[in-house]
């Protein structure tokens, strides 16, 4: 049975089992590969997307249960110029870069809820997103830079 969903403002109708996780629908069926697989069990946050602006792990979310518009890293900004993306560039945050879409999507959610996060707020909010390359200290600095620019 076809399932309808909206990703980055575009409507799709996908013919997949409703229990298929959103992650694999986005990546393998729709073909947007910015959202990454890292664990499949909700423990690394590399697959994080927004559903109506709220950050969620797409690897755990059956596509049939998606209620709302999906935004992936490709849809975060028109030209890669979201304040977070600019701050990421300024601090040269990425190493391998693989986790960074999940990091940026979570950070965007954090700032939408809490425009002036403290270190403790950042710890609590970003703790789910693993970066095996160890870019955490730069992520922290970049979030603060973006928060300043947005305020």
């Amino acid at each position, binding site marked *: 049975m076809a399932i309808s969903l909206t990703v980055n403002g575009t409507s799709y109708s996908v013919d997949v089992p409703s229990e298929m996780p959103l992650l694999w629908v986005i990546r393998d069926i729709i073909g947007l590969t910015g959202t990454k697989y890292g664990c499949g069990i909700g423990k690394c946050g590399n697959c994080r997307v927004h559903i109506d602006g709220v950050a969620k792990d797409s690897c755990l979310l059956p596509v049939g249960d998606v209620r709302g518009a999906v935004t992936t890293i490709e849809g975060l900004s028109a030209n890669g110029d979201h304040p977070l993306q600019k701050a990421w560039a300024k601090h040269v945050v990425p190493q391998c870069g*693989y986790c960074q879409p999940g990091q940026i999507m979570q950070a965007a959610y954090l700032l939408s809820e809490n425009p002036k996060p403290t270190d403790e707020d950042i710890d609590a909010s970003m703790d789910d997103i693993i970066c095996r390359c160890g870019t955490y200290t730069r992520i922290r600095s970049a979030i603060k830079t973006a928060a300043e620019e947005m305020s």
Partner: protein
Amino acid sequence: MNTIMNMRRRNLRKGVAGRIRLSNMSRRHFLMGAAGTGGFVLGLTLFPIQKNPAAAAGGVFEPSVFLSIAKDGTTTIMCHRSEMGQGIRTGLPIVLADELEADLSRCVIVQAEGDAKYGDQYTDGSHSIVEFYDQMRELGAAGRQMLEQAAAQQWGVAQSECKAQNHKVVHQPTGKSLDFGDLAATAATLEVPAADTLRLKDSKDFRYVGKDTPIVDLKDINQGSATYTIDITMPGMKYASVERCPVTLGKVKSYDASEALKVPGVEAVVEIPPFSLPVVYNALGGIAVVASNTWAAMEGRKKLKITWDYGENAGYESRAYRKSLEESARNKGDVWREEGDVNAAFGSAHRILEAEYYSPLLVHVPMEPPGAVAHVQGDKCLVWSSTQDPQSARDVVAEAIGLDSANVESRMPLLGGAFGRKSKPDFAAEAAVCSKEVGAPVKVTWTREDDVRNGFYHSDCAQHVKAALDANGKVTAWEHRSAFPTINWLWDAAENRPGAWEIDFGLSDLPYDIPNISIEGCEAPVHVRVGWLRSVHNIFHAFAIGSFADEIAYARGRDPVDNLLDLIGPARIIDLSGNPEEYFNYMFGIDKYPIDTGRLIKVVKEAAKMSKWGRSLPSRHGLGIMAHRSFLTYVATVVEVAVADDGTISIPNVYMAVDCGLAVNTDRVRSQMEGATIYGMSAACYGEITAKAGRIQQHNFNDYHVVRMSDCPRDIHVHILQNLDAPPGGVGEPGVPPFAPALYNAVFAATGKRLRSLPLQNHDLSI
């Protein structure tokens, strides 16, 4: 193929930097990229590093294209090494661009495929810059001089009056200039200058080298458009997930795929043949489920019914194995360095200190799990894999599907982390076998559970260390026995003792000024695939040496930094020429890269200064230090720890002083040090793989923990002791080894608890 693998292993042990030859290839080659014909193309023949290169490289000596300049001035630079987060796609090109006097904003970086014509592409051992710095400079200098000559010819003036500057050649007397693009066609007709006429830039004129340059893939990564192997698609591509035996060397006895084939989307089941020993990088064997998407393949795989022959390792238990390692390290092993007479020194000692250290198996868990996409068509195969070693990927694929290596095109996009796991491209063979069987391109993606359960593990290790002190507290003897499963086993299943080159990872080069030394490697049978992980055996050797040095400090009542400087002794070059096997020195010449204790002393003093060593701290806070040379680079790390009453730790600050000789891209040197500290912290605090009945007991990030944002050090301060005229040392790995001992020494300073086994999470620090 095993011959090639053995040569590779020998290179790793004893390689020497290769020779190069430059050639003007403008008439024979199209420009790289889409720039068309009529430009300037410079090639570089990178002779492999054996004495008889023809034998090792299969006789391929085609000079490879490394640099081209199109008529519009677009300059294309080939990166032949894998990018896995270390920044090499920026690091080597800026060396070339700087020497060429090119404007980096007009340069395009193209990724080379895996082919012996590029010379060494084995992106491991922190040696990309070490090995290719001089060669990229020479290539850049040759290009610059040819462009200057082309300008002189076009203007009809003397070449000495023409000087390349920021993508132009300027006629100095008149100030007129021509863009590199306007000179490409003329340069293409010129002879390459002889090696002895190349003029390298003075380091004070460097524009990029020795400064901060943002990585070339930054924008793509931040927008989610960077491509990794897991993102590669091909028309008609299928997706596969492979069930492998949970016990090392186990094999499929029989299987029933009927239920798996009923899962919607599942299209086929493919048997990956069992390998024969030695393991090398061959696919483990198992059953692949091939489907129309990744999730269907994973779901189908769950429905497979497989009966395994678990084989000889079904009784492997980590706890019992640890005991056997500890027992082994208590007995004399193969002596790989001997100075003086330790037994005589112990006989006349005023005091003897003795301690045992243990560190468990670790697994790499790069965020992008291992994976590959292969497309077999007739007698040809195209394979994209997340590999640090595209030439081995090519060989492994060729062997797995019975092709000639020359018919395999091996490519690597960006790697989502690697850390040594992706030097072993067993996963590329799996994709090729599936593709051949189903007649379509196939992507194999390892699940995280596969990655944790079927890895190439960092060896577990038991060490027994003993020191003699005289009546004045001077250390007169150091005996160090290290027992761990050997990586040599990958190539020879009969191997069960550490090789000399493995002891050379941070143990045989013990930099202390002690007259009597015995360094020994002790027997350890192998029950899982073992393999190098970021900084290799330096992790456990530095842990034991750094911890024991600290124990000596307290035993003789000295401040740990004073103690460390006393142990290191005067600035000097350490001579290891008396070792029974030549010290491998990370593959590079000991004359160019001697073991220089003067540099170690400098980083110790600098890190102590940065941390304000000796300052007063709140209760249950402590500072700990360790300094270690690895991969030709010297790093001292001071960790500041705070231990809460419930035993949880936090790390307000880490201070690192780094002497890597020339630091090419200073921003990436800092980022590698930050990353290495966090990688070292994951190992020190959480890393532990255990086996029961031969099966790995951990699964995923739920039970194999790594450092996250909340426990990451609040600040990591990195100071680079820059030396623009020194040969560059390695950067990716040397930040890892000092972390664990510095942390454990800090924990001792904070709590008085001397802990001798990794990881920290197994110890109770509460009060």
